[in-house]
């Protein structure tokens, strides 16, 4: 029997399964206080899913406020935190929106669909701002490459990201693939989407205009993903529990492609007053958020929702997370035109409600009232927790256990062997096994894609204006020092964008952590958010939005704290992009920045010694800013042929990637006063390797000297080194003077073999 508002009044003491739905007793009591009665089962469903950690940010809110409070002064932010995605002014009347979100738990349960629907969800967020989605990126993290479960989840996740994005026609232009034991039982699947629109095309999720209609369009509503968000994202996987496969949503990228085209047509035709995508919490979320942001009232005829499965109960319809659905607010006068454009794209659409000024969200089911709530209490005024936190008891010991006693290679042979080992390490090896499954060409505007430092797309084909994006995070650094670890992630992403020639502009983030109920995890979270907010203030670029994913742990063991940071940059003409590959003989190779003996959390300590301890590299954001200005000026004034940031694996990895990507060798040497091992493998920040034509050398070095950025000439591009080193004519070699020589082919074999061999 349907539980109506009348029943709730007449039968106030009925026992309700709030705990099974993830609500705490005091949260349930709060709902009763708000309503002045017990909730109906439909209301309980709505509150439970909207007050889940995933939807309400109840544990993170108090910390996320810093992103607004410490925001640098900026005039580029057109829509800030709180909307589906932030919007940034990139000039010439163009606005860009971008956001990254997690789909970690669903991807562990069902790798292909979990990852696929992660892409689908973030694309709809971008679409709902009024933007045409233009590209995706995916930061991924797995357990050890050789672990059996990695072989289960990784191919499925990669195929899911590719299967959905490829079929949707969005180029995949970058991301990350990282392996660490802490992700074995809890892989991370973060998905980023970027879209662009003209300034006047920005749309918001608000239900304005009493009497306007609420139109649900796209795929039909089915039983997939019921409670997916609350059940999957707010609980930790425990052994022996029931399988949760039915809660994972199933994606249909073809429908999403139609939804994109239909949505952009109705938006451009001026037929939409407000728009919201349906993601986590489905209709509950869309109706309550639209109403809460608008006139404050909405009436919904739930029985009008088109169903894939006619047996669904109203509670299930409210909670269903069926994919590829959108909700639009349309005036009665525009309804016919709206429906006609949907029909053109063979997208089903139906009016399910209307905007009212009642201040209530009311839902009826075949004439009976089943929901009557203040929408704000569902959408925005959920519980807020000041979770207790404290510095982990093990933190001091971890930081004291530095890498100084680890055995270091010193002879030329040892250094050469270390180099070949490092370039083949799973975290440093070529990721083309992954990226070759993604379409990077579709739409014809991809200027740079993985393995470049940043992905870059052309936005305006007339002027060449474009944007660059990078996502980064070193979870080991964040574990050693979460405050500076978050700053380091920001610094790396900022540096990558600048290295491509773009001016860093704005930040998004996806904060992946363990359980917020664990005070030590909560401390990591508090430290990381503070570090990120402080860092953004120092760099002068605002956070435009983001996502928090808690409960990433296996049993009591949380993942490495993983605050993934995405930085967006703008470039006024993508013709000026700086690639990572050097081009021709005689070009000079310069190392910018200072190299110190910094191996705490380094890839060398991790891969060679299995060691994690000490302090991460020092972060100096003023230096990062200076380096960024030099990299951008070098691009703008045509001084740089190539540039590549120095990060994981150090200068050695940077030089190897530049040689591999160009296919041409180089002769390199060490600056005075530094030992070879430190120069090659330390992960000191604020550095990049740049390539300068001889004709530009003086101008470039004088600019660096005038600005106070150390620049060391460390090599020259040379395709003719083979014979001198004892190889046949034409053999390309990377030579480290007075140390060792290695052929580019040998580097390629080591670098490119790791993933295919492991995943065969």
């Amino acid at each position, binding site marked *: 029997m349907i539980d109506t508002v009348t029943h709730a009044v007449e039968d106030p003491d009925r026992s309700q399964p709030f705990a099974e739905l993830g609500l705490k007793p005091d949260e349930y009591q709060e709902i009763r206080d708000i309503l002045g009665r017990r909730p109906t089962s439909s209301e309980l469903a709505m509150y439970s899913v909207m007050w889940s950690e995933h939807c309400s940010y109840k544990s993170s809110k108090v910390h996320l406020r810093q992103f607004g409070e410490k925001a640098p002064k900026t005039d580029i932010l057109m829509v800030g935190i709180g909307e589906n995605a932030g919007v940034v002014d990139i000039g010439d009347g163009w606005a860009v929106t971008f956001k990254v979100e997690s789909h970690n738990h669903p991807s562990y349960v069902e790798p292909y669909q979990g990852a696929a629907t992660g892409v689908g969800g973030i694309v709809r967020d971008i679409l709902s701002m009024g933007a045409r989605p233009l590209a995706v990126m995916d930061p991924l993290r797995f357990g050890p490459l050789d672990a059996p479960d990695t072989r289960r989840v990784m191919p499925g996740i990669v195929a899911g990201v590719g299967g959905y994005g490829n079929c949707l026609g969005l180029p995949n232009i970058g991301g990350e693939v990282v392996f660490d034991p802490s992700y074995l039982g809890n892989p991370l699947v973060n998905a980023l989407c970027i879209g662009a629109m003209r300034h006047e095309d920005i749309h918001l999720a608000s239900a304005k205009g009493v009497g306007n209609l609420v139109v649900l369009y796209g795929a039909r509503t089915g039983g997939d993903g019921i409670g997916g968000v609350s059940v999957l994202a707010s609980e930790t996987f425990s052994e022996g529990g029931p399988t949760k496969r039915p809660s994972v949503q199933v994606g249909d990228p073809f429908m999403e492609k139609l939804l994109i085209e239909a949505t952009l047509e109705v938006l451009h035709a001026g037929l939409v007053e407000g728009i919201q995508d349906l993601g986590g919490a489905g209709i509950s979320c869309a109706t309550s958020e639209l109403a809460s942001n608008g006139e404050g009232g909405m009436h919904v005829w739930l029985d009008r929702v088109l169903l894939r499965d006619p047996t669904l109960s109203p509670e299930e319809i409210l909670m269903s997370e069926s994919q590829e659905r959108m909700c639009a607010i349309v005036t009665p006068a525009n309804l016919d035109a709206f429906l006609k454009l949907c029909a053109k794209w063979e997208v089903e659409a139906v009016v399910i409600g209307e905007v009212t000024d009642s201040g209530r969200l009311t839902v009826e089911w075949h004439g009976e009232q089943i929901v009557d709530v203040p929408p704000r209490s569902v959408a925005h005024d959920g519980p807020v927790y000041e979770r207790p936190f404290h510095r982990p008891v093990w933190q001091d010991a971890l930081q004291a256990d530095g890498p100084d006693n680890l055995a270091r290679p010193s002879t030329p042979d040892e250094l050469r062997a270390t180099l070949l080992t490092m370039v083949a390490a799973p975290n440093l090896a070529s990721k083309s096994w992954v990226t070759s499954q993604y379409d990077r060409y579709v739409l014809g505007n991809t200027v740079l894609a993985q393995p470049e430092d940043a992905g870059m797309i052309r936005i305006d084909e007339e002027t060449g204006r474009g944007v660059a994006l990078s996502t980064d995070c070193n979870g080991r650094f964040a574990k050693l020092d979460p405050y500076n670890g978050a700053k380091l992630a920001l610094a790396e992403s900022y540096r990558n964008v600048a290295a491509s020639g773009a001016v860093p502009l704005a930040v998004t983030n996806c904060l992946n952590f363990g359980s917020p109920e664990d005070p030590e995890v909560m401390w990591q979270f508090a430290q990381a958010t503070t570090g990120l907010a402080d860092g953004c203030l120092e760099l002068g670029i605002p956070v435009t939005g983001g996502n928090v994913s808690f409960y990433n742990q296996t049993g009591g063991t949380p993942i490495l704290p993983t605050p993934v940071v995405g930085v967006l940059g703008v470039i006024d003409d*993508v013709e000026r992009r700086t690639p990572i590959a050097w081009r021709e003989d005689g070009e000079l190779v310069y190392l910018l920045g200072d190299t110190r003996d910094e191996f705490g959390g380094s890839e060398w300590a991790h891969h060679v010694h299995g060691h994690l301890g000490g302090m991460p590299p020092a972060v100096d954001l003023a230096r990062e800013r200076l380096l960024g200005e030099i990299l951008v000026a070098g691009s703008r004034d045509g001084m740089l042929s190539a540039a590549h940031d120095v990060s994981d694996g150090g200068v050695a990895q940077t030089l190897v990637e530049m040689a591999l990507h160009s296919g041409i060798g180089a002769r390199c040497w060490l600056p005075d006063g530094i030992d070879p091992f430190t120069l090659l493998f330390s992960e000191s920040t604020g550095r990049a390797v740049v390539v300068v034509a001889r004709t530009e050398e003086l101008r470039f070095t004088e600019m660096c000297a005038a600005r106070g950025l150390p620049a060391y000439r460390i090599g020259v591009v040379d395709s003719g080194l083979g014979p001198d080193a004892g190889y046949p004519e034409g053999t390309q070699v990377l030579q480290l003077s007075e140390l060792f020589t290695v052929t580019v082919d040998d580097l390629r074999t080591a670098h490119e073999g790791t993933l295919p061999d492991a995943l065969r």
Partner: protein
Amino acid sequence: MIPRVGVVTFPGSLDDRDAARAVRIAGGEAVALWHGDDDLKKVDAVVLPGGFSYGDYLRCGAIARFAPVMHSIVDAAKGGLPVLGICNGFQILCESHLLPGALTRNDSLHFICRDQQLRIEDTTSMWTADFETGQEILIPLKNGEGGYVADEATLDMLEGEGRVIARYLGLNPNGSRRDIAGIRNERGNVVGLMPHPEHAVEDLTGPTTDGLPFFTSVLNSLVGAS
């Protein structure tokens, strides 16, 4: 005269903008054609672009074949209208029986996106006339179902009549029989190609500009004929 080249959009077409851009860069006028409309708008040639028409449900290209626009295109192609099918467009041409054979799932079972070397084998078609026979080119390849198959007699016939227009060089990316990347019909006006020439028309966004001659070929032959 600036030739008008139609680019068809099916539900799920993805590379239609790219094909239109390539037509423009090559010097033609791109004309949008809609799957549900059998009006070819007096175009001089047609490109069936890549993508996943109708979600590739049932079989790649199997549903698109029945679109109203395809009835007109099949008729016109039989009358000599130049038609280029790229990737999903190639699949549609096979399903429409304008070209023999079929495209099957890559032998690796993975979708693959990479820069692919090809050798141009035939320059008598309307879409390859601007190449040299034996010319080696590098253009993007991206497909999940790109393995060209046909019975032995058909493969012999295609090779015997010089109707293989391009072959894969190096590692065969998808298990195509006899390394076939593209074929033409007997008359030479209809060409199907699995790799993507429309993604290799600008230095900025493509690995090369080796894809451009596919588009200039047809434009030049149309201008020459008028």
